[in-house]
């Protein structure tokens, strides 16, 4: 590419890829009021970084593994105890974040930039990150093509969905696993603390424009992409960190559309 340095192109592609994956996961998170679940998963991702450093393995891989484990754990707990309680998720989110931070600080020998994990470092996106994002994107696409209507029915009422023959638990589990993958990969883009905003803000903004579930997904894709592009530009123009810039752009769009009268 002429004019555009590689790292910027990678950042743009990575950011857009994550925004595209976040949209379908995000709309369901908003409809099912599960945003705190996403936040918990995101917070625990830092634990993955600590373990990765501890065991001296690839960090992306260790974050993916730990996120998947925690996602499975929460999923199981919710099945067992019907616990979707804010309190339990809150305890889990912050204790795992604290454990992650504590473990990180114990590894004095390693020079690490915690800020990069907490708030993202989109300019460090590599080619292999892009390949991983593409793979997860493809998985997400396949999952949604197959289960879109199932997911809508589960959102309406899980019991009714199950009576109507949908394999509710398996669909929910797949959703949670995709969510864990997405969160692990987006850590580089916006960081642990801001991942949930990428899931929720475009979806919430899209609600102001949409009249159907598909419409909301469409607008959410669009707004997510727009936030990434404008966030990158703002980050370049004013020399602010990219993760916060993307989230601020998403929030700005949300605030502008808040003035528009909500559709039904």
């Amino acid at each position, binding site marked *: 590419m002429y004019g555009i340095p590689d790292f910027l192109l990678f950042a743009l592609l990575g950011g857009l890829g994550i925004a595209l994956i976040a949209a379908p996961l995000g709309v369901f998170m*908003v*409809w*099912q*009021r599960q945003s705190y679940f996403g936040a918990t998963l995101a917070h625990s991702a830092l634990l993955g970084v600590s373990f990765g450093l501890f065991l001296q393995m690839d960090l992306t891989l260790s974050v993916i593994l730990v996120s998947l484990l925690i996602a499975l754990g929460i999923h199981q707990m919710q099945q067992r105890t019907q616990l979707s309680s804010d309190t339990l998720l809150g305890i889990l989110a912050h204790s795992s974040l604290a454990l992650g931070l504590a473990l990180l600080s114990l590894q004095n020998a390693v020079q690490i930039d915690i800020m990069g994990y907490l708030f993202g470092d989109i300019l460090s996106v590599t080619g292999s990150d892009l390949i991983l994002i593409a793979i997860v994107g493809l998985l997400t696409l396949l999952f949604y093509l197959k289960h*879109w*209507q199932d997911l*809508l*029915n589960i*959102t*309406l*009422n899980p*019991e*009714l969905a*199950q*009576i*109507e023959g949908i394999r509710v638990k398996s669909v929910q589990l797949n959703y949670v696993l995709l969510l864990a993958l997405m969160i692990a990969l987006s850590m580089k883009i916006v960081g642990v603390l801001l991942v949930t905003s990428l899931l929720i803000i475009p*979806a*919430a903004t899209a*609600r102001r424009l*949409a*009249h*159907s*579930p*598909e*419409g*909301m997904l469409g607008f959410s894709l669009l707004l997510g992409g727009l936030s990434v592009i404008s966030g990158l530009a703002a980050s370049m123009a004013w020399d602010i960190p990219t993760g916060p810039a993307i989230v601020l752009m998403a929030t700005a769009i949300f605030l502008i559309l808040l003035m528009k009268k909500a*559709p*039904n």
Partner: protein
Amino acid sequence: MIILLSRSPTQSPQLYDPYKMTLLIEANHIFHRFEDHEVLHDISFRIHAGEIVTIIGPNGAGKSTLLKILLGLIEPTAGQVGQKPRLRIGFMPQKIQVDPTFPLTVRRFLSLALDPSYKNVKKWAGLFGFSANHTTALDQVVDELNIRHLLHQPIQKVSGGEMQRILLARALLRNPDLLVLDEPAQGVDVHGQAELYHFINELRKRFNLGILMVSHDLHIVMKSTDQVLCLNQHLCCSGTPQSVSQTPEFAAIFGDSAKELALYEHHHDNHECELAHGHIHIKE
């Protein structure tokens, strides 16, 4: 008479024949306990095609647990539920909460009940529209239940009575053999209840549906109910509405106020008067 639901040719509608009925679902010695607390004790009954069964019982009698077991949502501690092979159940929940952020019209809500793999070629039609067959079924149910004017409204904006009809329509769109209704008369005025019971009876007659209703309202039981099951952890009495109300067990468990069941029967003229010389609905 409009044909409400299209059935496949292999499943031609049987005539209403109470003496030669297909067994739809059967509960065999169901026991259920939550930790140390037994909620269901030795429950057995059967529902045949064309039969209306009403389960009544006070709050905490185990009605919803029994319902969940029958619907396969939870496993009983002991006992089995037998179902006719490929039994199709249409379930009408008590209520449904749809988050305001979920943009969904009534029409879309109904169409979500339609099987997306109905025709493989039309798989995408399930996502963004409906196939011709689907539209016909949907249109017929919508007209029968008089909810056409609601189709383009957001599902969150409809009233309680309207929601009830929408949920019933959705259950019917599943093309069921067995219709399960959880507290169908709750929150519906007398007139609405009359219409609902009339419609349910029509369904049974026309399509030979088996119907299972659950109610905590001890005083009003639909007269056309074939079998009333009084549940209070165990089945304390069962039988026709008339016979049940005379058993001592019934009076013992449901108290003096329930000495008689008010039997509700629909008449086309003057149904409100008809109800008035039964017993006035008394809330618990």
